[in-house]
């Protein structure tokens, strides 16, 4: 009896207006598609920037398209493996300010040891710039990483909850410091201080720049390390403590090893950030493109070179192209580093917790 009654009720419902047919919901449709549009816009922006940078840098790979202004230098124009472009003369759409004897971005020219983009005989050696970037970045990591990691260990594993709620945002606030402010501080204060303490020959040098840039990368290394440490399941530390390990032993032998991939990712992200950082280094490193490994001499980094020279370069010139080429290089390097940090390390971290 009861069953038949129930069935009849159900049937009534199915026959009535409240059918299960799909309905079109306008608000739902709009919301979904607007969000989709926005996310694709940001994606498209990245692709466009990428395409633009590489397009502007492209002429470097096709040097024969580059034409010269003057005939007098025709003979000496054969620089490196460049074949003499002979007869083609005058009136070019490229207005080259350099009476380009060797104004060609050949492989040989790009790999030499000097960067003198403006002059009779422009030299586009990227080596000093690359060394400069590397020096400043490694110094920044050396100063910043220990501080950031130790701070992360303290706030994630030792500090009381209340203290952690003060420390964490305070350090993360450092990330919102405009880099020009850090650069200014380095230029005026840190540089003077270090010179008076260590007696540097050059007031602005790689060391000063590295220390200043450490401020810029501390927040990023700190945050990612902190997250990696707190992401280690609590039952690991409980097990360790219940075995009579001290807090420090637990941190060192249980939590740190479990979080290593995350800490490695933090370092890589810090490296990527430092490698692309411009303003601090432009202000605090002295900007001399020297090919030396002495950390107490001024350096010029790849990014600072673009920052300093792009505004004054002739549009479409070799110099212009080379600067874009540097930009593309920076892009590729930071992209690779971030990609490693993102994909490789994350996969490894997950594997570890699953015990493979």
């Amino acid at each position, binding site marked *: 009896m009861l069953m038949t009654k129930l069935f009849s009720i159900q049937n009534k419902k199915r026959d009535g207006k409240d059918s299960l047919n799909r309905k079109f919901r306008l608000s739902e449709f709009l919301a979904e598609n607007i969000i989709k549009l926005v996310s694709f816009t940001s994606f498209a922006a990245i692709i466009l920037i990428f395409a633009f940078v590489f397009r502007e840098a492209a002429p470097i790979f096709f040097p024969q398209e580059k034409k010269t202004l003057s005939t007098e230098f025709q003979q000496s124009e054969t620089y490196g493996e460049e074949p003499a472009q002979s007869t083609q003369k005058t009136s070019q759409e490229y207005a080259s300010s350099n009476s380009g004897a060797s104004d060609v971005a050949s492989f040989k020219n790009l790999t030499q040891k000097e960067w003198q983009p403006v002059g009779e005989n422009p030299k586009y050696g990227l080596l000093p710039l690359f060394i400069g970037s590397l020096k400043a970045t490694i110094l920044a990591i050396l100063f910043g990483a220990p501080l950031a990691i130790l701070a992360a260990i303290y706030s994630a594993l030792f500090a009381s*909850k209340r203290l952690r709620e003060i420390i964490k945002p305070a350090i993360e606030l450092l990330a919102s410091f405009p880099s020009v402010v850090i650069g200014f501080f380095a230029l005026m204060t840190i540089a003077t201080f270090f010179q008076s303490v260590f007696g540097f020959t050059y007031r602005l040098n790689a060391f000063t720049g590295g220390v200043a840039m450490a401020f810029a990368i501390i927040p990023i290394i700190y945050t990612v390390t902190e997250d990696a440490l707190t992401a280690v399941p609590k039952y690991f530390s409980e097990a360790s403590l*219940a075995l009579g390990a001290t807090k420090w032993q637990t941190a060192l032998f249980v939590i740190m090893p479990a979080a290593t991939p995350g800490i490695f990712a933090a370092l890589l992200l810090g490296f990527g950030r430092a490698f692309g950082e411009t303003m601090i280094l432009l202000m605090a490193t002295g900007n001399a493109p020297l090919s030396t490994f002495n950390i107490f001499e001024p350096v010029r980094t790849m990014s600072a070179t673009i920052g300093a020279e792009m505004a004054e370069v002739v549009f479409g010139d070799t110099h212009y192209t080379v600067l874009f080429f540097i930009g593309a290089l920076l892009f590729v390097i930071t992209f690779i580093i971030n990609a490693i940090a993102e994909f490789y390390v994350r996969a490894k971290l997950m594997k570890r917790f699953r015990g493979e």
Partner: protein
Amino acid sequence: MIENHKIVVENLNLYYGKKKALNNVSIEIPSNKVTALIGPSGCGKSTFLRALNRMNDLIDGVKIEGKVLLDELDIYNKNIDVVELRKKVGMIFQKSNPFPKSIYENVAFGPKINGITDKKKLDEIVETSLLRSALWDEVKDDLNKNGLSLSGGQQQRLCIARALAVDPEILLMDEPASALDPISTTKVEDLIFELKKNYTIIIVTHNMQQAARVSDYTAFFYMGKLIEFGETNKIFTSPSNKQTEDYIRGRFG
């Protein structure tokens, strides 16, 4: 009836912030026996267990009053070294939690942090601990395998081996078999039976049959209070308290 008390708890009160989680608990836990703590969820039995090796210290805002005497020594005394206490009072958790290291490293972890570096000695401890936790035969050929690659039941026995390696006197078990299949559960229960010869065991369980099977004494907790404590036989056949009887008969909880 009980001659030898390992742990004597007197008027223990425990607060999480303002919430009172344990209310005036007094209990005398005998040596070399298995004592089961039963009661509905949130009755304070896990809290009580964690009070015995001061794992509650790790939680912010916990306040404790009363005395917990371990071999007549108050473990909440200011002079007590928590690290030393936890070496004496081992703990097995509900979710098996081997470290993401090899089986060998898992068991050797405790001895190593206690400063034992001699390889031979460590080998010996690892072997005896795994033998005692009845895992040796299953893993002796691949001690370098990651502890997390073992099955759930094996992982739990690995955790027991790891706890045994620091040579505790008491083992606290917080629902050690709740996440295990029946066969693994049987193995862990057999193990508990074996272990009580050498250790005092206190086990929290939701499983009434398990309490009846493995324990010599049973304590029934309800709303932060110890309602009844006595020999398991008596508790399960003729409880003196109405609430205990209702709970055991499955009328609530």
